[in-house]
Structures are given as C-alpha cells and as structure tokens.
C-alpha cells in the first residue's frame, strides 16, 4: 500500500512539473497556460482545458531546495523590496534568471489573481502581467463584509465573466456538467484530507509530512487521483498504533518554514510536540450549494483568511481545542500580515516568533530559543 501512495504522489508531481522549462525554446504548449493564486476557482479552468500553475507553491519548492537566497537577491536588483512577500521575491528572481530547481513554469497566456487570501497577491500578479504582457484577471471576494446575497451576485458575475474571457482565450466551450464533476472531485479530496487532519496527531507522524502533502490539495484538488491518494494515506494512518510520544502539545500557528527540512523549528522545540496547525486546514473549503455557481461562491468567498476576525477566532479556537494543544507557537511572518493577526485572540499561551516562511536568514534563532524557553517555563509553573 505504501508503494501505491508513493506512486500516486510521484504521478501527480510528474504531471504538474512535466511542462516546466519544456517550452523555453519556442515550442508552443498544447493547452493555454494560466498562473493562478492558491484560492483561484480552478474547477472552471480545468473544465475549460486550461493548464494552471501556482507560483506560490513553486516558491516553497525553491526554498525547500535551498535555492532561495540568490533569487531573493536578484529580486532586489529588479527593484522589488525585500519587505515584500518572499514568495513573490523568490519567483521574481526565478523568472528573471529563468532558473529554478525544477526549471521554470511555462509562460502564462493569462494571469488570474484573487484577494481571498491576502491583498498582496493581486499586486504581485500585476508585476507578472507587466513582465509577460498578458491579460490579468482579478477576482474580488468580499468575504463576510457585506450581505451574502449581494456578495454572491458580485462573485457569480465575476465567475461568469471569467468563463467568457477564458472561452475567448481558448476557443473552448464551458461545460457546467464537467465543472460539477470537478467540484465533486474537489469535495472528495477535501473529505479525505480532513480524515488525515483529524487523526494524524494521535499517531507517530511528524507535521512535516502534512505540510508537504497538502500541496496536492492546493495544486491538484479537482483531480480524482488526489482523493485516491489521501484516502490511502488516511487508511494507512488509521492502521498505525497510537503514539506514545510525550511532550507539551503545541499548536503551530502560521505557515510551514519551507526552507527548513522539518518545515518547523523542530530542533529548537525540545519538550514540545506539534499536535495541530492552522495551515493544514486552510484548503478545507466548503463547496455546498444548489448549483455550481453557489458552490464556487461558498468555497472561494469564505476562505479562512477572508473571514472576519470574529469568525476566524471561533474557527481557529475550535481547531486548537480539537487538537488538544495547550499552547501555541505563532509565526510573526514577515511575508504574511493577514495570517499573523488570526492568532490575536487565541486564549492559550503563545510564543510569537519573528520569522519568514521562505527566507532562512530572517530568523533570530537565539531569540526564538529564549521565547520557547519562556513558553516552556510558563506552562511548567
């Protein structure tokens, strides 16, 4: 069974990366190419035969391959401040040099940015639009800030306009039926991922594997292989004995540290055991609704980072309670203000560590150790 999991992972990754650098020498891709942000309604693109790539995810791969520093330096030479999101700085360096650990994503024919995660992504996509001189579509998701009916009308109008523009770009017809199938695939992927999220901490599993394995939910959630993969993983986990590991149960609030082999500060966290993370719950989105447009609205308008502070407090509080964590390590992430403020009102002791998810030089390790010591002492009193 383990072999099948590895085979499925390899197959999904091979499919995703197969076109990286393939078209550098002027060959034309078979499908139109879109670069999208992490919470774009990809079911629409998949239904219309468009291949899509995630620059954010590739930045994580670059950092995991220990290649981010030279690219961050090139980005500064391109006048992009290092105060900006490190995902964008990393990719700016990658596309400027046309270099990356797995090559370079194929040149986009269209760029699609959303603001249901942060407001920085549309700004970043604007500079990509200038670089590639291709159309930029920005999808505006109002979240909970206005009456649901008004929000749904706005989002649905945008989704329909997106379909028209993609149809013009590709010459392909949109199929509501096919989109419904793809939404169902996404639902299944999420349901199986949820099984993993709800059970992993009871067994001898490091959060590292979850931080890495969620990538399929991000990049391939509407592919049937993703649900199959997660189902196998969930089954495998359920067959494992319960863990006997000890340690102060701690919640990791924030992004994984992509540059770190463990994806979190494991070597500094003696005496702690990570039992939960909010990042691994972000793509558990809800496709409920009576038709595809309502389903896409619910899924993409109410993403966690697009919710009000009050709703986020409740949801994050629930996730923390279910995890059994008695304290939290909260990342004050240089690259993501929106995530950091989510932890503002959690009512367990927390150590707030200034860090960046991509730039390994940003962390002051001595200070982090001191903060973790204080947290440990606070809990042991």
């Amino acid at each position, binding site marked *: 069974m383990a072999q099948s999991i590895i085979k499925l992972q390899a197959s999904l990754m091979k499919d995703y990366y197969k076109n990286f650098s393939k078209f550098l020498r002027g060959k034309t891709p078979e499908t139109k190419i879109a670069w999208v942000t992490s919470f774009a309604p990809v079911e629409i693109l998949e239904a219309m035969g468009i291949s899509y790539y995630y620059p954010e995810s590739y930045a994580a791969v670059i950092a995991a391959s220990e290649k981010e520093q030279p690219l961050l330096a090139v980005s500064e030479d391109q006048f992009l401040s290092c105060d900006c999101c490190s995902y964008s700085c990393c990719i700016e360096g990658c596309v400027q040099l046309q270099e990356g650990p797995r090559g370079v994503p194929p040149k986009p024919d269209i760029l699609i940015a959303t603001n249901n995660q942060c407001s920085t992504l549309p700004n970043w996509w*604007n500079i990509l639009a200038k670089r590639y001189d291709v159309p930029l579509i920005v999808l505006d998701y109002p979240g909970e800030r206005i009456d649901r009916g008004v929000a749904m009308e706005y989002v649905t109008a945008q989704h329909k306009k997106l379909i028209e523009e993609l149809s013009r770009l590709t010459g392909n017809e949109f199929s509501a039926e096919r989109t419904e199938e793809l939404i169902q695939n996404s639902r299944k992927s999420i349901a199986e991922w949820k099984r993993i999220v709800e059970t992993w901490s009871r067994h001898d599993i490091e959060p590292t594997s979850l931080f890495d394995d969620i990538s399929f939910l991000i990049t391939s959630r509407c592919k049937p292989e993703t649900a199959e993969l997660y189902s196998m993983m969930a089954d495998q986990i359920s067959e494992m004995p319960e863990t006997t590991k000890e340690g102060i149960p701690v919640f990791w609030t924030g992004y994984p540290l992509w540059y770190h082999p463990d994806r979190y500060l494991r070597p500094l966290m003696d005496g702690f055991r990570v039992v939960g993370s909010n990042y691994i719950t972000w793509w558990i989105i809800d496709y409920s609704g009576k038709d595809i447009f309502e389903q896409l609205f619910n899924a993409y308008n109410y993403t966690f980072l697009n919710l009000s502070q009050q709703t986020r407090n409740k949801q994050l509080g629930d996730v923390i309670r279910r995890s059994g964590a008695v304290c939290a390590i909260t990342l004050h992430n240089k690259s993501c203000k929106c995530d950091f403020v989510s932890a503002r009102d959690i009512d367990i002791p927390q150590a707030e560590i200034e860090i960046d998810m991509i730039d390994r030089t940003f962390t002051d390790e001595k200070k982090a150790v001191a903060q973790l010591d204080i947290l440990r002492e606070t809990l042991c009193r």
Partner: protein
Amino acid sequence: MKLLSMSGFIPEPICDTVRFTHYSGSRNISHYCGYASDFISQVMSDDSIDGAVFPHTCDSSRIMKSYMSDSGKFMYQMNVPIRGDDIAVRFFAESIKDYQRHVEEYYSVAISQDEIKERSELVNRRNAAVRELYNDLASVSYAQYLEQIHKALCLPLAEQTACISGVKKAGSRGTKRAFVVGSFLSDTDIAAKIEEYGFVVVGDDLPESGRLSSRPEVTPETDIYASIARSILHSRISPTQNDFSGLIRRDLDEMKQRDVQAVLFISQKYCEPYEYLYSVYKKAMNEAGIPILKLSFTNSEDSQKADLLLESFADTI
C-alpha cells in the same frame, strides 16, 4: 458625529467625515504600514473621534478592524472593489448603500436621497476647485496647496471648496520639473523640502491631489449610488485597483505633456501596493529616461531621510 476616514474611496456624499492626515501621539502598532498604524493609534487614543471608516484594499487596511474592534466606537470597513468594470460599479453601489444603513442605524439618523444629491454636488464643486489648481500646479507652492487640501478634508463638506479656493498663486522658485507619485502625503514638510531643493511639482497622482482632480462628476441619475460608485472607481486609479499598466501609461502621458524631468516616488514602509508598483514604475521610468527617486517613510510624520536624498537627487537633475 466625528468619523475619521482613511482613503479617497470613502463616499463623502453619505455623511461628513474627517480625513486622517497624520498622528503625533504614542504609536502602538509597528509592523504594518505607518499610515495605517497611525490611523489605528489615533482612533484608539483620540476621545474626540467616535468612529472610523476605512477600506479593505491592501493588507494593512485589511487587518485594521481586528485592532480597533475593542474601541467601542463605530467601525465600518468599506467594501471597495479591486476592479473597475461595470460589475464592480454595481457592487460598490450596494456597498455604499450598506455604509449608509450602518451610519443611520448607529447614529439614529436618516439620510435622504436629496441630502445625498446635495452633498454630491458639494463634492463636485470641491473637486473642481482642486482641479483648477492642479491644472496650473507650477503657479502655486506645492506644500501650501497640499496643506490647504489636507485642512479642507478635515472640515465639513460645505466648507471645503472655500478653503481650497483660498490657495494663493505664488509662483514657484524651482526649475526642476517634478512629478510626485505616492499614497497620501501626510507630512507636508516633505513637499516643502521638495521645493526647497529646487523642484517645481507640475503633476502628481496622490489621492488628495491628482486623483481627486481627475474624479468624474457625480451626476444626478436615477441611481445616485451607482453614480457615486462610478465617479470614485473611474478616477485615476490607485495601485489597489490592479491595473499597473494603465496607471503607468496614464502617468507617463501626463509627464510628457508637462515636460517632467524627474519623478519623486513617496511611500510608507510596508505599503505593499506601492512597493510592487515601484518595481515596475522604476523600470518604466528607466525606459523613458526619466530619473526617479524613491523616498520611504516609517510613519505619517517621518521625514528624516528626505533632506539628504532630495539634495543628492536634485544635484543629478
């Protein structure tokens, strides 16, 4: 009712607001753009303010409500579309109605359609006064022009046009024709320094100046809310409206018309829209052969580095 507002996207025809310009007290928030941080600090510490209205257009403004929710004051975060098409106009019109409903409910007032139309006309007149000065910017002191606009934006709408019309034509001593790009220029000392070092500002795209002057009139249509929405969204755009190419093209056209020799790009540290804009704006200026200086400040009163940088830059023009 004293509502502190941040951003030109807040629809003034609904009710009077006091535009946030700068803050001098204790600073509480350090890791967001200085303008947003100072806004939060003023709302929390100034007892004369009983409410705040602000947009949701960038990451700093996005999180503001989280920091001010315990203030016990009226809070409204405006749903400003980040696109400018007809879909966005319709949505923004609904957002404006929603804002009106919240103000009426909280303050137990009723705002009539006639009042909104009258206030729209006052906005049109105020913007026309700004436009008149903007179209001949070289004939006024840029620092005094901005000071007067900032002063006006803190007054009731009915008094703003007279305040702006009070800007005297003084002529400029500078000879280096400059264009200013940036977010709201809180610290008008910077404008004074710009002139001190021999620049004459002939154009800008600041929200309180170039952008305000470009605003189409609110017309007395059947749907006044759609008209207000259209007027705001169809002004010269902010980088938060996500059309960097259009923004740069428009600015370059104006620079050519006004024979601009230098660009001064002024922003707050941690202001993502302007940081991203700068990376492509700089390249566009390099291609056009127009020298550009970037000034980055940490809060609404920070002008420490400006002297040295402006002086050195002026020497190169």
